[in-house]
């Protein structure tokens, strides 16, 4: 592979990485902030269930 096609490949990879990161940021933005510790609440609820 000459350096011309290698550069094109890396440009495609970098562009795809930027696209993936953008989607990741959007997903994080629209995902409720409490999702990360929701399961903790469930555990606490079960532990103290009368």
């Amino acid at each position, binding site marked *: 592979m000459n350096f011309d096609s290698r*550069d*094109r490949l890396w440009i495609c990879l*970098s*562009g795809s*990485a*930027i696209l993936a*990161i953008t989607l990741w940021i959007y997903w994080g933005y629209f995902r409720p902030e409490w999702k990360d510790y929701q399961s903790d609440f469930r555990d606490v609820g079960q532990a103290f269930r009368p």
Partner: protein
Amino acid sequence: MEAMKRTWQQLTWTWKPQGERESGDSIVRNLLLHWFPAKVNKESLSFRYSLWLGTISAVLFLILSVTGVILMFLYVPSVERAYPSVKDLEFVVSFGGFIRSLHRIAAHLMVAVVFLHAARVFLTGAYKNGTAANQNRPINWVVGVVLLLLTLLLSFTGYLLPWDQLAYWAITVGTNISRAAPLAGDRIRFLFLGGHEIGQSTLLRFYVLHCFFLPVLVAFLFAWHMWRVRKDGGFACMDQLRLKQKAERIAPIKAKTYSLLGITRGRTVHVETSLVNEDLHTVDSSPNLTRRILLVTLATFAASALLAVLVEAPLEEAANPRVTPNPAKAPWYFLWLQELVSDTTIRVGSFTLNGALVGGVLLSGVLVLLLALWPFFDKSSAYAVGAWFTKERRRQNWVFLIVALFIVILTLIGTFMRGPYWNFYWPWEAMPEVPRRF
């Protein structure tokens, strides 16, 4: 319509030139690209020589400028409102946390990359003049060292702006070191802070320095730096190639001359920089150089954005001069200085050796001065220009690497092994919890 078309052509360039003429035109006639040569040496394009660290620094500066301008729309440089505005940015503004995080990561990366770029130039002897006429690479090295110091200062002035505990005390430690400078120490600190303590005038001074003066100065010196690279005949690896050709006694191809040049005095860099068999060693800048710049730009942005998502910018509680964190640490790139200050503070009975003066000002001052003036002491031959770890410069390179390693080790100790009261703890030792001092 024709004028608009011409303007569009001047702002853009072709990625698929039909010939050498079109390729050259797209560089020379373009607003953004005209400072590049129409043809570029293959070695200059390679990653193994320059590692493209200079371009990466420039891309990081661009990211910092764009994200910085966005942050300026939302940030308020007042002691009462700075912290709430950053908190709003972090938690209320859409994607504000990401923009802030990207700005912070790019700033940290720029400090590291500019230092690595300086290390690359040193280790390849690229600050030395080659054989061509009118070269002045030592001056460009000095400009580069000033750019490194300005990068540190840019990052340092930005550190205070969130106005949280981390910012307040890091700047307190940093500016206290400057107090030890002989004769003018207190005055320097006063000038920096706009008073005897960090307050509203400090925040405003740091804001103006960070958002206007320092970026403008960096942009100007960057332009000068690049202009000098062109005037010095491009990358120093070209000199190495030319010298090799001379050593192999390859006779230069007779170039075309013009009668007007016959009556001018002296020689231009280009007379000396002509290579034997240029076609073998050079390629058209458009699209080879432009494509690689695009690649480096995209890769740098992708890496910075990924780090910005993974590592969120910290925001501690609002700055409080009455609550001192234990230990209070300077920003990471000044931690080697703080470590040096503590290591050179020696108390024997009533005698105290002032570490801030010895380690913080004198030692670091001598190091920076030596770094800036090194090209004028380096007496190695032109054969040591533009190549990694040449035999002739082996000792210099070792000294540089040992000093750099020493700085890295001190930074690591300061970051991970200093606990309360600046006591030393091994990484496997637990640091004690100390109640806050009010």
